[in-house]
């Protein structure tokens, strides 16, 4: 396939402005503002809108569970053992859980730990990835060798199994400790991507030109390399939020994550497992929320990847 065909294919698929056929590099392929790129691409997709709305709702639930609960249910957080495991009814659309608490209220309360875990772990991993990726990719040498070997080692550890082993060793942990453990196990992917981006960009012509002007390493990294290297890492970060949320729920479900009386989707699923056949709503609603959240982050990540893709190659 020729440049023209490739350029046009890229133009067609990524909805870029018409690329000049015949030019090896249509000018539209290198774009300026990160936010604008993403926005132009994302606003045209209904799935992205659905994901954004879902995440907006989830965030609202995580921030203000009390308000939503009192708006959506009768009696809010009031529990009555007599209502234990009752199915959905008027005023209680999700029914009741084992303790006879309104299940909608409980599922809403379960949002917060999931989102906190997903966002905090990803933010911490992103920070580590950016710093280590920049330093290793730019300077190379012993630091790079060391970090690369360490990432290799962590890469070999299965995420859930590794977390289980660590968490079982320290039984009295809260959400903070889980964030720490998941970060320790999850920083490597983004760091690898960041590092390889930086290595490629450190030789970019415009970095060479800035070096020629006498720019110090800090300026090269922050001004030139970081803004151009970060996009694929952000894509992976979005996908990562979903992965961490499902990982956290898995650990809760397995009984090694959060413990009662904390509230989380994983714990609700765990509690539901014995009554699935008779009371399917106990399984259905937390699973629905969990899947919707994870799926939304994955959709956003995918969309962001498509939006940035023509630049990556």
């Amino acid at each position, binding site marked *: 396939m020729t440049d023209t065909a490739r350029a046009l294919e890229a133009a067609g698929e990524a909805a870029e402005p018409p690329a000049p056929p015949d030019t090896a590099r249509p000018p539209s392929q290198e774009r*300026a503002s990160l936010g604008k790129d993403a926005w132009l691409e994302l606003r045209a997709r209904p799935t992205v809108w659905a994901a954004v709305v879902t995440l907006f709702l989830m965030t609202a639930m995580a921030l203000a569970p009390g308000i939503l609960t009192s708006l959506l249910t009768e009696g809010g957080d009031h529990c009555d053992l007599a209502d234990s495991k009752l199915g959905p009814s008027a005023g209680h659309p999700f029914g009741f859980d084992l303790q006879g608490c309104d299940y909608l209220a409980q599922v809403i309360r379960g949002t917060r730990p999931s989102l906190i875990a997903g966002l905090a772990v990803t933010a911490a991993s992103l920070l580590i990835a950016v710093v280590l990726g920049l330093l290793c990719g730019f300077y190379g040498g012993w630091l790079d060798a060391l970090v690369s070997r360490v990432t290799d080692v962590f890469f070999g550890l299965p995420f859930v199994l590794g977390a289980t082993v660590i968490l079982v060793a320290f039984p009295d942990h809260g959400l903070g400790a889980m964030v720490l453990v998941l970060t320790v196990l999850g920083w490597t992917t983004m760091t690898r991507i960041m590092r390889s981006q930086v290595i490629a960009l450190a030789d970019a*012509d415009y970095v060479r*030109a800035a*070096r020629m*002007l*006498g*720019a*110090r390493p800090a300026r090269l990294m922050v001004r030139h390399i970081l803004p151009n290297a970060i996009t694929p890492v952000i894509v992976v970060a979005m996908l990562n939020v979903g992965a961490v949320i499902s990982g956290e729920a898995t650990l809760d479900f397995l009984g090694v994550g959060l413990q009662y009386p904390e509230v989380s989707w994983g714990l609700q699923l765990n509690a539901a497992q014995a009554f699935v056949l008779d009371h399917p709503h106990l399984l259905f609603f937390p699973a629905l929320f969990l899947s919707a959240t994870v799926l939304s982050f994955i959709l956003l990540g995918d969309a962001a990847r498509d939006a940035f893709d023509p630049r990556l190659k």
Partner: protein
Amino acid sequence: MPPSAETDPPLLQATALTRHFPITTGVLWKHRTGAVRAVDGVDLTVRRAETLGIVGESGCGKSTLASLLMALDQPTSGTVTIDGQDPFSLSGRELRTLRRRVQMVLQDPYTSLDPRMTAGQIVGEPFAIHPDAVPRTDRGRRVAELLETVGLDPTHRDRYPHQFSGGQRQRLGIARALALGPRLLLCDEPVSALDVSVQAQVLNLLQDLRRDLRLACVFISHDLAVVQHLCDRIAVMYLGKIVETGTREQIYTTPRHPYTRALLAAAPVPDPRRRAPDDAHLLEGDLPSPASPPSGCRFRTRCPRAREQCLTEPELRTRDGADHPTACHFPIDTTT
């Protein structure tokens, strides 16, 4: 440093400049198995306000040579002297000061500008890096002047690189290189990525700047026609070495090295009436690998004049300064 007492010291000088890239194998314990001799003993001199062309085909080491001359890469051996100073022995601060005097225009205007910076930011970056060069309040005006100097509209300073054509981007690159008032400009294939109808604009701009600013230039290209247009003197490079140096007339009308003559014979001339009727000077084969250059004279494997001596005796070293030095045991007799 006070100006040297010598009369007109060279602005840029390279002596026995060599850069070998090691070839390593092994995953955990890397060991050297050889070296790519990208630049292998190059001598050259650029005086003030002079233009030196370096011509060679891909793989001859001209881009590596450019990096060495600009102190972007450390030589394996040999020295570079810029304005009387050895850039590799300078402190970071001294080297930054030296960089103001030598600047570079890169080949590809599509990759040499940061896509996330505006034209004004790109041309103004030198001032951000050297804050003492121009007072902060004057920078905007200076950027506008620079844009005008290279024939761009200063009102376009807020545009991003992708909003400019290839030729305009290359002008931006030139403006950036001129910002700190360099005395030497190294141009690495500055027009080869441009459309034919735009190349002449950029070549003429470089020609004018060179004259008006009394710039010395090193002009690296694979294109003999482009080099002849801009350069006073020309050095021809083959497989890491300079095989012939001479004035424009010497190189183009009386080439002495068989490689130079072959290059001239192979370059197509845009005139069907001058179609080369004889293939006598066309070369056979390809460039040998710089990792294992031929014994003796490097050009011998493709040279129509090669004899036994060329097999064993290395080519002569061309010392810049002599009149029309040629690294050939049997140079073409130019007197006939």
